[in-house]
């Protein structure tokens, strides 16, 4: 599905992503773990087009998509969410979701003025779709709230909802569970599973909650200091001594760090 070849992302002299090569299988839910500062988010940014990689290649189904702009990747079915939830603060939650499907009828100046009827139909369908997604995520009651006003966990749900508005191929979720309570976390896990099963989404999930990873992800990749430490099933990862040393073993310390971050 996605093949990453020797990807580098440097900030000045600092190598945040330092030669990552991996393959994400179609239809998989891949977990990406690793200590804070490992370069997981930076890897996502480089793939999803927010930062051009310094070096290396990203292939989507064999097609070179390295360094494409985010909106171009969007139209190829590549989506991502943010570690710190982003939202259109001045719009309602429903409008936030409705912003997503793009390049529809209505985007040209001409249609804005002369295609009102078709646009109205489309808006109605879109509204219904957004309401359905809000319902699915159990946040229907927030549909008219300004997205800037809802809680951090609810913003996370909205982020996930955004990927449900279109038919994505591959979705990168950055700490989708951070700051979300247990019940919501289960809702999110169920949503991910269903999207994977029913709509064939491929997921790459950054997450610190090992239960969450255990429930969803196979395979799992562990990163540290910009490099891939290990790539395999969760059991293999858990027993990998590099991983234990860099991430799992120092459990308590890392947990404290996570709280700070």
């Amino acid at each position, binding site marked *: 599905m996605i093949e990453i070849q020797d990807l580098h992302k440097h900030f000045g002299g600092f190598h945040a992503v330092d030669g990552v090569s991996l393959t994400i299988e179609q239809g998989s839910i891949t977990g990406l773990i690793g200590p804070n500062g490992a370069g997981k988010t930076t890897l996502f940014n480089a793939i*999803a*087009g*927010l930062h051009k990689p310094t070096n290396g290649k990203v292939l989507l189904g064999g097609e070179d998509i390295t360094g494409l*702009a*985010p*909106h171009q990747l*969007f*139209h190829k079915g590549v*989506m*991502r969410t*943010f570690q710190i939830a*982003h*939202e*259109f*603060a*001045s*719009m309602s939650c429903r*409008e936030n979701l409705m*912003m*997503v*499907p*793009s*390049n*529809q009828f*209505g*985007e040209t*100046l001409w249609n*804005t003025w002369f295609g009102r009827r078709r*646009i109205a139909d489309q808006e109605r369908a879109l509204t219904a779709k957004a309401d359905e997604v809000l319902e699915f995520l159990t946040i229907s009651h927030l549909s008219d709230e300004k997205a800037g006003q809802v809680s951090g966990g609810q913003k996370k749900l909205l982020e996930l909802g*955004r990927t449900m508005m*279109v038919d994505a191929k591959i979705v990168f979720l950055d700490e989708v569970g951070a700051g979300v309570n247990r019940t919501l976390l289960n809702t999110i896990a169920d949503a991910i599973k269903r999207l994977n099963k029913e709509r064939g989404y491929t997921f790459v999930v950054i997450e610190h909650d090992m239960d969450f990873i255990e429930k969803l992800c196979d395979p799992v990749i562990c990163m540290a200091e910009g490099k891939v430490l290990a790539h395999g099933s969760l059991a293999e990862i858990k027993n990998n001594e590099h991983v234990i040393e860099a991430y799992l073993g120092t459990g308590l310390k890392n947990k404290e760090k996570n709280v700070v971050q």
Partner: protein
Amino acid sequence: MEFLHAIIVLSNFVVIPAIAYGSQLALGALGVTLVYGILRFSNFAHGDTMAFGTMVAILFTWWFQSIGVSIAPLPTALLALPIAIVVTAALLLGTDRVVLRFYRKQKSAPVILLIVSLGIMFVYNGLVRFIIGVGDQRFSDGARFIISARDFKKLTGLDEGLAIKTTQVITVITAILVVAILFWFLNRTRTGKSMRAFSDNEDLALLSGINPERVVLYTWLIVAALATIAGTLYGLDKSFKPFVYFQLLLPIFAAAIVGGLGNPLGAIAGGFLIAFSEVFITYAWKKVLMYTLPEQFAPSGLMQLLATEYKFAVSFAILLVVLLFKPTGLFKGKSL
């Protein structure tokens, strides 16, 4: 009776001119605020964009006049306005393509874009002076007054006159129309919403599939329309002189900042606030006070707080106060 006279004098010399001037500033400030909100820089070239648009409107007005086309009693300039908007839009899009896009691709800091816009300002500045000259141009034709002071006196039998200029009425009506269309566009159409989304959160807008170049294109089209309309209305109301438009940059920026940069409603409120303050403070209040105060307190001086030459000090002072005490402006800035 005395009190009525005071109100008429006040309306004639303060309220009506300030409403017209405020509408022009509001339209100008809307342009500045849109560029700031969506393209994320302070566009110092806006005053000279207005000058350019007005110049094109004037040239076409002259041409229409020379071939005898007229929409009297309305000023011919209204007919030239759509053409001027198109030409100005072409200039802005050309500038964007040749200059600004480069810096956008580099993800340059806003302050760099600000300096770039300063350079663009000088170029436009020179362009306008080269084409039409530095002098004063009058181009308003059609009926001058809707009600002249003399007619008003005759009609009402009062001692004081109230004049309403055609250009003032046209200014206010046009401004209301333009603002209504703009807000409808931003709030109701998909393109408008994607512009708001882009202003709200650029990264998220990009990841939601919104094409940034398209947003930029629409922004410049709207800015061209706003700048040309604001400039032409100002020129009709007063007169056209390139240097004056350059100077307008201060009250326009003051209006946009006072209202909260990036906030269209704020820009409108700011425009009127600046206009009213400017007119209030530079108006000679002698006559109004003569009508309202008992005779023994009648003022001997002009009762003018500030000479008209210093009117820009008003914008400057308001700007300073706002930046010191409420830096985000009266309305919350940076959200469309």
